[in-house]
């Protein structure tokens, strides 16, 4: 009896562990989108920045042998795309949606073109050696604490044994929360997303605030990209972002543009993805065989329903999507 329960516990921990692994890039991108949108800038280019970051990380890690150099490249490339987005919509007041689409398409094309030119493997990077990746970190005391029944496995399986970027992702949620609600910069950032005119008349530069928001979004997507190709995976594969940037966008909306809630939404989506293979062929009463092919669709359906106000209400920042024209 007790043995069965222990087994179930380990199984639950494995699912939780899988959830965390899948949720990490979503969390980082959702935080990126959140910072950007809180400043009034729509970012549907999360997907492209994530993809570009993943490519840059794997390519540079493969060429230099260092995951840190890869991470640096991911940050740089993703930030460059973010600044391009900023240049188009902050400096030139271009359409934010169109600029985001351009970022996504450019990233999809450039990663493959440069990938083929560099490695001649059909757009993939070579498989990375263990020392070229971010490897799991064993937290102190895993040996001794791990032996304790119940709590031990929780510590060893779920809390310890992830790579550095996983911990960075969760720290980012705290960091973004702290920045938004506990710093002057965060206060101004939220204000500029609601009423840029007020910020302007207070003598604070609207473009400079928004550029910094866009840049933060770029850096976070870069970390997420590095996670995909050099921590979670061990190579870049074309289109490896596979819609994660858009799922993150959905999670951010479901989380009502708040860091904690957005993280919960990301974990929920990660959980759905983790349990999908386990539900394959499972018979559910009345419905019959579980329609596992439809589970990946759920995040999007939830988002549509929430946005339509059928349960709860998600109110975006008031000035979201509009360029600010300074009055003279």
């Amino acid at each position, binding site marked *: 009896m007790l043995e069965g329960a222990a087994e179930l516990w380990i199984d639950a921990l494995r699912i939780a562990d899988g959830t965390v692994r899948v949720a990490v890039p979503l969390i980082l991108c959702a935080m990126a989108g959140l910072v950007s949108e809180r400043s009034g800038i729509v970012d549907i280019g999360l997907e492209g920045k994530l993809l570009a970051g993943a490519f840059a990380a794997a390519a540079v890690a493969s060429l230099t042998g260092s995951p840190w150099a890869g991470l640096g490249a991911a940050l740089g490339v993703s930030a460059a795309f973010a600044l391009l987005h900023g240049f188009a919509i902050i400096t030139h007041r271009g*359409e934010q949606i*169109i*600029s985001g689409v351009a970022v996504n398409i450019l990233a999809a094309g450039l990663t493959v073109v440069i990938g083929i030119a560099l490695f001649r493997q059909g757009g993939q990077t070579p498989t990375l050696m263990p020392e070229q990746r971010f490897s799991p970190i064993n937290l102190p005391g895993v040996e001794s604490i791990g032996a304790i029944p119940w709590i031990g496995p929780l510590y060893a399986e779920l809390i310890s044994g992830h790579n550095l970027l996983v911990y960075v992702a969760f720290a980012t949620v705290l960091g973004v929360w702290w920045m938004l609600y506990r710093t002057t910069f965060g206060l101004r950032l939220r204000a500029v997303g609601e009423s840029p005119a007020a910020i302007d008349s207070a003598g604070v530069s609207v473009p400079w605030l928004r550029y910094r928001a866009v840049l933060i979004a770029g850096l976070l997507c870069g970390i997420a990209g590095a996670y995909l190709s050099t921590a979670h995976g061990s190579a870049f594969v074309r289109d490896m972002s596979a819609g994660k940037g858009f799922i993150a966008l959905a999670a951010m909306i479901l989380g009502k543009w708040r860091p904690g809630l957005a993280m919960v939404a990301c974990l929920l989506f990660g959980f759905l993805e983790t349990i999908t293979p386990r539900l394959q062929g499972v018979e559910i009463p009345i419905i019959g065989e579980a329609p596992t092919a439809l589970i990946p*669709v759920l995040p999007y359906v939830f988002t549509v329903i929430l946005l*339509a106000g059928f349960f709860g209400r998600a109110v975006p920042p008031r000035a979201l999507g509009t360029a600010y024209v300074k009055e003279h």
Partner: protein
Amino acid sequence: MNTLPRWVEILLIPLINLSLALCVAGVVIALVGEDPIRALSVMLKGAFVFSGGLGYTLYYTTNFIFTGLAVAVAFHAMLFNIGGEGQTTLGGLGVALICLALGGVLPGGVVILFAIAGAAAFGALWALIPGWLQAYRGSHIVITTIMFNFIAAGLMVWLLSGILRGGNQGSPQTNVFAEETWLPRLHEIVRGLGFDAASSPLNLSFVLALLACVGVWLLIWRTKFGYNLRALGHAPDAAASAGVAVPRMVVIAMAISGALAGCMALNEILGVQHKLVLNFSAGYGFTGIAVALMGRNHPVGIVMASLLFGALYQGGTELDFEFTSITREMVLVVQGLIILFSGALAYMITPWLIRIFAKGATRA
């Protein structure tokens, strides 16, 4: 302020944007270590000169006309329909359901007519829901249409691996439609008239696309509805106080937009594949944004921009054969750059063009 001559707006600006995009792409090609001029000439030959090249170019053009028109109709009402992918996918579902149910039962021509209606209706439905949600529930159409793209893709995986999967199909796809429902290929028609023509997938839906252009032109510029639609796009508040039923217009505009995107499935599914397959929308819906931007949302411009993108796509496949280090993905780069220059950075070039032409005017 905006005193640019019409030909500058319509011709020069798109040409400048295209040149900028091609220049940047050329730099990328040079950095990759290939000759940009040779790449361009390979693409041009592939698109227009090689046997069957033109047919393939026009076949791609057909897709872009439909998706470009779809984006443009919504643009006129200042709506961003970036759900072309999903609407096309659903259009394909409409075609497949009609052809599988009625193929062999009714005469081929009748089934084709129903299939056209099916493509339009299913595409319209998939755009109408986001339109309705924006008009009556206040959700943002961009986000909803993005979500609907993914929902459509998931739906298709579920259907094609389940109930719609053909009995003897190894991969997730339907059975092949009855042959009399296939849209005739244009080279067969031309050969039937006694001329020689190289084989290509170009089919009758190209003609349908051109008809759709005429239809959209009539609708937007020659009807009261179109007038209201443009009024809504220019000044929504003024349009509303002038008595335009804004929410209803939003829903109808999106439905028309979705119907046009859905019709792209006529080319791919009814004209070429003859069965429903996964991911046949293949990014054409997104390219529609670039097409509409370059074509200034006007049917004539859209045909020209579609021809350009058709040539880029067909020429791009030629890159795969001629070069080892550049591939058709180069076309994606060009496409992204065109969207960047003619869309996102649209206001970057205009100011100094205005300055140049203002100077010219004072001198004259």
